[in-house]
């Protein structure tokens, strides 16, 4: 996804259509997998894996992150670090207690 010239843009359009098809298939897969009512840990892992693939496709191709400048990657790396910390906070909190919540 290099340049933004007319020929490059025409190539991009073909990629957008392919990504759209992939996103539709992955949506069907994620809803299909949910019908099996798998154990919660497996269901969460599968649902988040599929969401991560879908999110990566949107970020890489629709948001052009696959060919972005390094400053944007630095901004996002910092964001991801803080985001992961936020997600780990509940784990630290719940992991530090014993027994059932009141």
């Amino acid at each position: 996804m290099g340049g933004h010239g007319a020929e490059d843009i025409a190539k991009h359009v073909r990629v957008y259509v392919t990504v759209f098809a992939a996103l539709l298939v992955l949506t069907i897969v994620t809803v299909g997998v949910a019908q099996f009512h798998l154990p919660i840990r497996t269901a969460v892992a599968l649902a988040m894996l599929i969401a991560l693939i879908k999110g990566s496709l949107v970020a890489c191709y629709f948001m052009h992150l696959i060919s972005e400048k390094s400053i944007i990657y630095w901004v996002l790396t910092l964001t991801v670090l803080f985001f992961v910390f936020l997600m780990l906070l509940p784990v630290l909190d719940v992991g530090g207690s014993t027994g059932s919540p009141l």
Partner: protein
Amino acid sequence: MSAEIKYITEPHPITGVSNAKLGIWLFLASEVMLFGALFSTYILLRVGSNHWPHGWEELNVPLATINTVVLIASSVTMVMAWASVKLNQFGKFRMYLGLTVLLALTFLVIKFFEYRPKFDHHQVWLHDGTSMRGHLTEDDDEQDYILFTRDADKEHPDVHHEAEKIERERIFRHSSFGPGHSNFFGTYFTMTGLHGLHIIGGVIVNTWLLFPGAVMFRTNRERFAGRIECAGLYWHFVDLVWIFLFPSLYLL
């Protein structure tokens, strides 16, 4: 004296990107933290609760699936609108951005039909520890009872119940399936509501770019392409949030 704003379209020599693009990415980074805080709260509430319903038991999965497809399609039309500006095709740009706005409005209409039944549907908890779901047929404060029509049983969906009197002294609590019903519905309405507000924001910006803002297509196309790219980055982010919200709330 007029001050010229530099590096709106051309890359800044230090960052390598235009100021507009760096600005929108910094804004999106703050948005990640906003939704991140809500996801973190959701995990904490869910992991820490004794009972948390499965999303597919309580929410309308078919409508949410349709909305997922609608939002993904709108992301494609948005990026096609940007490509059309770069290719100097004004007609196509108008068509694709118009479709994006229409799809966003479709998402909101579907969301309305998803929300509305939640406020018509009620649950009554009795002091004896039992509860029932159905519709409030009559709730007059002057009366010492309510009239309540239970939902049909799952085993016998064709058998409909008659409205029954429930004395108020037997009622521990009754609530619609709105945000106040439980932590589950509070989380559901907060997260999907905030996402819905972002959709409305996108509709406003894209509608402006479609009509009065489109004048810039003829006067300064490169700058206009930058505006569409920034609006697009925001719109794809809104799609990205939904991609994680959908399985988290509806499918797990």
